């Protein structure tokens, strides 16, 4: 038997141990305790976050599957649906960037094909420290090539994502991977162990001692001895996963498949208790039947191993041989290891002898949830900045060039060109634009994909930051011509036991929930990663929003680059005098702080609706939203992408640096043929959106004059080649030197 002391060693609190004893009516044995410790870790149980996550809107007319399954599903018509999920692999990537990131990608892909969907796209949302530091370069390079090698080998295009650099992520890089799949609505499979007497089979790779206690590892702060927890990092095998993918999709053509569940964190323990809990059934399995890679593994090791590239398959009794044949074709194992029972117990046998027996539901859902204390951090009281004390720089050209070469604004081509984003020949808008667009063969449709989050805004104001992350994601889809449908989110935070961190968490979720409800984009799947914190240095709160949108007609997609000389360039939305939280303030002036730009959801929605309508009507030729770096950066990006210039002027009452570099929300710049302007103005008026004509697309320079009462108060005027050079090579120069 295992007592309180053993429980402590495994990271279980006293009250959790008591709860286990109460549930079992006896003391647990070592194996049982081990299973509880992994399942009740934060990573698997969401015990710190569950009550807060309930605040998200999770349903809607298109939602076929909300949170609670391996991935969320939204209907896109034509009997097709999009399956999506995002997940973090932060801790493993901090210790072994290449394998950590690779296995993160492997895990998220399995979540998608577990549901019976064909994975069609990957996205990666990354955060690192200052790229000038050698250790950061090593982590960044390793993570990118880990993602590349896994996704590329699988033949799933990595079509989007983000990269941010800030000191707060120095010791805790964030590696969030998102996968998107397409499925026929009538072929959705769920992770259920239903039907007493049905067979439970383990398929895929053999089991070794990989990643023991990985779930617990992900549920604590990284420290000096994290490196000593070596076995928690696994080596990915994308080749085997590719075979597993093809074999599973072939398997799932059959109606006698009852349920499928991938083995991720907490391995066989998690897969078996979760499938049983979902079906209100039990499972009896014998660990001696599990194919092994290593000798002398005990039941404890087999049950909590996190060996990758494995799946649990539940099939109707009598079809075991059919399963075996399919997997044999793909040179993979498929072995019956157990049976579905009626008694709700997860019963583990070794050579026929019972070695553990616990209620499946208590393992899967029984972790007592914790209401953490929440307290507004002190720093938030003191973030206001007096703008009048900031002198406006003389040379605005220089500011713009510096901003464009900031690694947070510069081109991310160094990253995404290491990813195969053209395989499957569906990528009709490749990475580099606001959102990626994929066509769906056999239909007229397309889907648009993006991930977004400004962690710095979330730090300065968690509520506004949360709202902004959702709004920006939706805006990125809209400028691509897609109607936003649903969200998958990855909530990356510090130690939730600290009230200030918990406050950030709650407020971010509140902001996201409000925006998601308002914009009609329910949260259908997600992941929480706490403890991204080292020695009192917590990451910025970083609730990454992954969003998918639908284009009924993929031919009506829109991209950000200016396309034709003479086109009118207009701004949709209003300029503001906000500078708080901007890249300009932080990186050019050297001031951290200020209130991040406010977001009025009503205005945001109107701007988005107007943009979408204009694209649908075919009025405009390009659209790009204004984000980091502000209006001048957005215009410059449209010039660079189109390899053409712009000339314009703005009459304003806003100070020129705020006008050019402020990051006021709900703004989109568009270019359109002059003859469409009046129609467009009419549309904007109908939809109650302000628009301003900024100037014209013009070859040569990027030129923008700021005027107050007719007087020139500031100006940028730079050849587009020069802009392109600063923007295009900044990251390469940083990381390769």
């Amino acid at each position: 038997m295992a007592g309180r002391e053993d429980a402590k060693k495994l990271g279980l609190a006293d009250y959790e141990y008591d709860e286990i004893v109460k549930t079992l009516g006896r003391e647990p044995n070592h194996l049982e305790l081990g299973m509880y410790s992994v399942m009740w870790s934060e990573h698997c149980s969401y015990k710190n976050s569950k009550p807060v996550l309930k605040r998200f809107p999770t349903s809607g007319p298109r939602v076929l599957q909300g949170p609670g399954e391996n991935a969320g599903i939204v209907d896109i018509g034509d009997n097709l649906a999009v399956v999506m999920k995002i997940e973090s692999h932060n801790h493993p990537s901090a210790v072994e960037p290449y394998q950590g990131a690779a296995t993160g990608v492997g895990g998220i892909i399995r979540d998608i094909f577990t549901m019976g969907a064909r994975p069609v796209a990957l996205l990666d949302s990354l955060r690192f420290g200052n790229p000038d530091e050698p250790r950061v370069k090593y982590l960044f390079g390793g993570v990118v090539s880990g993602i590349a090698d896994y996704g590329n080998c699988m033949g799933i295009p990595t079509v989007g994502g983000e990269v941010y650099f800030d000191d707060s992520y120095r010791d805790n890089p964030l590696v969030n991977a998102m996968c998107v799949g397409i499925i026929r609505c009538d072929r959705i499979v769920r992770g259920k162990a239903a039907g007493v007497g049905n067979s439970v089979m383990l398929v895929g790779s053999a089991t070794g001692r990989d990643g023991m206690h990985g779930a617990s590892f992900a549920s604590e702060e990284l420290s000096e001895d994290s490196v000593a927890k070596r076995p928690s990092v696994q080596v990915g095998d994308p080749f085997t996963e590719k075979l597993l993918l093809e074999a599973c999709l072939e398997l799932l053509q059959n109606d006698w498949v009852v349920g499928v569940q991938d083995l991720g964190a907490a391995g066989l323990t998690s897969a078996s208790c979760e499938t049983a809990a979902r079906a209100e059934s039990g499972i009896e399995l014998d660990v001696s039947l599990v194919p092994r890679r290593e000798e002398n593994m005990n039941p404890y090791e087999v049950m909590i191993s996190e060996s990758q590239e494995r799946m649990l398959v539940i099939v109707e009794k009598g079809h075991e041989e059919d399963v075996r044949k399919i997997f044999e074709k793909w040179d993979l194992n498929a072995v019956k290891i157990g049976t579905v029972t009626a008694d709700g117990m997860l019963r583990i046998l070794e050579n026929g002898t019972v070695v553990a027996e616990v209620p499946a539901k208590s393992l899967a859902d029984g972790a007592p949830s914790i209401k953490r204390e929440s307290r507004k951090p002190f720093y938030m009281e003191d973030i206001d900045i007096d703008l009048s004390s900031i002198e406006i720089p003389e040379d605005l050209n220089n500011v713009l060039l510096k901003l464009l070469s900031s690694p947070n604004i510069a081109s991310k081509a160094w990253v995404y060109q290491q990813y195969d984003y053209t395989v499957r020949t569906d990528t009709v808008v490749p990475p580099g634009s606001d959102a990626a667009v994929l066509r769906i063969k056999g239909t007229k449709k397309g889907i648009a994909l993006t991930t977004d989050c400004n962690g710095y805004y979330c730090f300065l104001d968690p509520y506004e930051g949360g709202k902004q992350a959702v709004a920006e994601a939706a805006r990125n889809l809209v400028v691509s011509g897609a109607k936003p449908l649903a969200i998958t989110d990855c909530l990356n935070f510090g130690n939730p036991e600290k009230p200030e961190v918990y406050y950030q968490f709650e407020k971010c979720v509140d902001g996201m929930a409000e925006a998601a409800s308002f914009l009609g984009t329910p949260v259908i799947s997600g992941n929480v990663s706490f403890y991204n914190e080292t020695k009192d240095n917590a990451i910025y709160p970083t609730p990454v929003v992954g969003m998918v949108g639908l284009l009924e007609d993929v031919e009506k997609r829109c991209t950000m680059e200016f396309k034709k000389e003479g086109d009118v360039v207009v701004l949709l939305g209003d300029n503001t005098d906000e500078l708080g939280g901007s890249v300009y303030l932080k990186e050019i002036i050297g001031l951290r702080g200020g209130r991040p730009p406010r977001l009025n959801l009503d205005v945001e929605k109107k701007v988005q609706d107007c943009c979408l309508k204009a694209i649908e009507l075919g009025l405009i030729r390009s659209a790009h939203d204004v984000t980091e770096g502000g209006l001048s950066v957005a215009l410059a990006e449209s010039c660079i992408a189109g390899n053409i210039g712009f000339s314009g002027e703005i009459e304003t009452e806003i100070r020129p640096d705020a006008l050019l570099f402020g990051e006021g929300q709900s703004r989109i710049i568009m270019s359109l043929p002059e003859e469409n302007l009046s129609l467009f103005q009419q549309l904007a008026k109908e939809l109650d959106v302000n628009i301003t004509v900024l100037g014209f697309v013009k070859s040569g320079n990027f030129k923008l004059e700021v005027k107050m009462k007719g007087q020139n108060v500031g100006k940028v005027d730079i050849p587009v080649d020069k802009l392109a050079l600063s923007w295009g090579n900044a990251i390469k120069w940083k990381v390769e030197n």
Partner: protein
Amino acid sequence: MKCAVIMFPGSNCDIDCYHVLSEVLGQPAEYVFHKEKFGPGDFDLIVLPGGFSYGDYLRAGAIARFSPAMDSVLKAAEAGKLIIGICNGFQILLEAKLLPGAMKRNRDLKFHCHDVYLRVDNDETPFTRLYKKGEIIRLPIAHGEGNYYADVQTIEKLKAENRVVFTYCDRDGNVSDAANPNGSVENIAGIINEQGNILGMMPHPERSSEEILGNTDGKRLFESILRHIEGRTTYGR
């Protein structure tokens, strides 16, 4: 034109090639699983697609060449059937010694996914007759091991026999080191065998065969093959 697309374990451009052959060109195409064999006369065109056969775990293409389907490919090759290896397929052809040389990792050790410009050096092959010699075309690449190597004699022979089919260049056709994405000898991107029926190339014509993908330069390669086969069945024999 009857086409076969071989599916090795780890192939992932098989569906893309199949799509272009059957949907874009409207030709009868079939997948052939690596464990299957076929007759030398069963297909007019055999495609060895891109991907990561056997994960490229030892060397790209090294393990795939031993599959049963490859035995049939060898026989079809001897029978003069057209064979094209794209990316990983090219690597397999090298390992199988159907083409000379070997592939190394890209010189910067990075996977490269972007468009490249190519100079068409030989427009008299069944694969390139709709291009013009010296023409500059644009195709996507996506590979980590496209650093083609062969010793000096082999390279001289290839050139003397006009067997270099595609060469990496810049937009204006200059063949320079800067225009070489992977370090391949003499910027070589694609070569053909002595008999002229087996082409290996790193860029992906199947990913640039449709208007919606923003580029149809690759489509002409497949149309060349079709023209060649049809010409032969109509007038030949």
